[in-house]
């Protein structure tokens, strides 16, 4: 279907030519998909979570299968901001020039680490259209609970990073107390929220009585979590007025459309990139067809248009 629907959206100051983004950690740093299609056609990509200094991540095995999903315990392996920019900066700069927004995800084990990583990005990554703060990182000083586990803790992270950049800040939320934490983040100046991160789960090898992965718990993603994620986006949509990026189990244009109707301005494709590497542009096409079939001239008319 050739469509005249305007697909451009504004994710808190990140001007995307269409709503399709990619979920951090499921899209490498973009270049891995250039053998499959022209990544420049996407609205945005979000790079793998990156900290000021390199992180090793968790031992193997890091992935196991679940019904209609997977569970991962990568543990935010990353080379640190300097090496990240050295390795991928030119590619990402080129991607921006091709009209695809680059959102760099920022990781940290403490407030200081977030600030330090963001400062490095500010200095070294002119190609970034915006930053995504991953508040699900484990807090080293609190026994591994997520940095943004409570409204207060999330607000504290946000308050610390906000003054460090004028570029848009998206906050990547855990699937927990969404409405309250969203309000806290909006109050501290978040430009947009993306949700959801993986849902903590557990898979035990009943013969050995040990975890199937190297850690007792890991993160569930894929189609299994989609309906839960749509509900959480709707909760956030009712709670705040900053734009949202819907994430979780998107495998089709219909899945993406559900997020838009529930209140998302953009939609990230995650696990599906890994199993169907051409998923993102296909989903973009299907979403565009759906918008046309709804008789609107601008996709923005459909954001939050769920009727209940």
């Amino acid at each position, binding site marked *: 279907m050739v469509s005249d629907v305007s697909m451009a959206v504004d994710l808190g100051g990140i001007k995307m030519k269409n709503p399709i983004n990619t979920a951090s*950690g*499921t*899209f*490498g*740093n973009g*270049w*891995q*998909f*250039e*053998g*499959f299609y022209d990544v420049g056609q996407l609205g945005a990509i979000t790079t*793998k979570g990156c900290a000021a200094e*390199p992180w*090793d*991540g968790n*031992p*193997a*095995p*890091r*992935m*196991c*299968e679940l*019904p*209609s*999903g*997977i569970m*991962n315990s*990568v543990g935010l*392996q990353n080379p640190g901001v300097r090496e990240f920019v050295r*390795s*991928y900066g*030119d*590619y990402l700069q*080129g991607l921006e020039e091709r009209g695809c927004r680059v959102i760099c995800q920022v990781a940290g084990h403490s407030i200081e680490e977030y600030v330090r990583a963001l400062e490095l990005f500010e200095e070294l990554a002119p190609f970034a259209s915006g930053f995504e703060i991953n508040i699900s990182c484990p807090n080293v000083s609190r026994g591994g609970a997520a940095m943004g586990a409570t409204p207060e803790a999330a607000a504290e992270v946000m308050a610390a990073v906000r003054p460090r950049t004028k570029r848009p800040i998206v906050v990547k939320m855990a699937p927990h107390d969404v409405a309250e934490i969203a309000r806290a983040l909006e109050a501290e100046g978040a430009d947009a929220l993306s949700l959801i991160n993986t849902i903590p789960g557990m898979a035990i090898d009943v013969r050995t009585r040990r975890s199937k992965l190297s850690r007792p718990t890991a993160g569930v993603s*894929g*189609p299994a979590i989609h309906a839960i994620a749509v509900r959480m986006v709707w909760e956030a949509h009712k709670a705040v007025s900053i734009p949202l990026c819907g994430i979780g189990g998107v495998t089709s244009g219909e899945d993406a459309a559900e997020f838009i109707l529930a209140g998302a301005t953009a939609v990230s494709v995650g*696990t599906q*990139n*890994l*199993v*169907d*590497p*051409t998923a993102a542009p296909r989903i973009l096409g299907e979403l565009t067809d759906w918008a046309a079939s709804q008789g609107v001239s601008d996709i923005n008319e459909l954001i939050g248009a769920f009727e209940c």
Partner: protein
Amino acid sequence: MQPSSKVHLYDFEVASNDAVGEKVYRLVMRSPELASELRPGQFMNVAVPGDASHIVRLPFSFASTDPEAGTVELIYAVVGEGTRRLSEMPAGSTSTVVGPCGNGWDVKPGGRALAVAGGVGAPPVIAAARALAEAGREVDVVLGAQTKSRLWGEDDARALGAGEVVVTTDDGSYGMRGFTTQAMEALLARHEYDLVVTCGPAVMMAGVARLAEGAGVACQASLERMMTCGFGACSTCNVAMRAGGYKSCCMDGPVFDASEVAW
């Protein structure tokens, strides 16, 4: 330097898919571009239809390619649901495959080489041995299996005609009774090697790597990990390095310099 990816998504058609042993199958897939692109030691990530609740592809090495016919030969063991469904794909059925994945063996010319394979580690080892033989090397091959009915690769190994072929079975039902590492020790005592290539169960490869290191011979090992993408996008296939930190099995491997791996 811009990073770049040469991994593609291709359709394939099953040309044939037959049991060649107990729970061991040989699948020939028609996928012309993939057949012309794959280098020994690389692998592919196959979508097996028939159960949408299993979303992940299955990674497989290949035993040979026929670029003229546009075909790729896989040898695989049925170990779970995915490989069971694969074994039920009839000739003529179709799906998609991601490839070529990974780095492949380093098969430059040189002295005598030793190829050691365990179970369904044989396909990439046979492919390596063939490439080494074509590069003009003498190549001895050790093939191990639990039992005779699960052995694959002997004919292909003998067809190389490039050196000795030793078969071991854990239960003594065929060839030498014992493990590939025992056969390897005997060969190391009799020949001078400058390269060992190996693929098989992790414990076996660790033993092979130790023996090679002890003998001062370079060793390349093809590793397996749970893989999600196969092309460097997810970091789920990490291999711990002796020097610390991790490398990616699907991009930096699956073939590693055995001396660099933290076994």
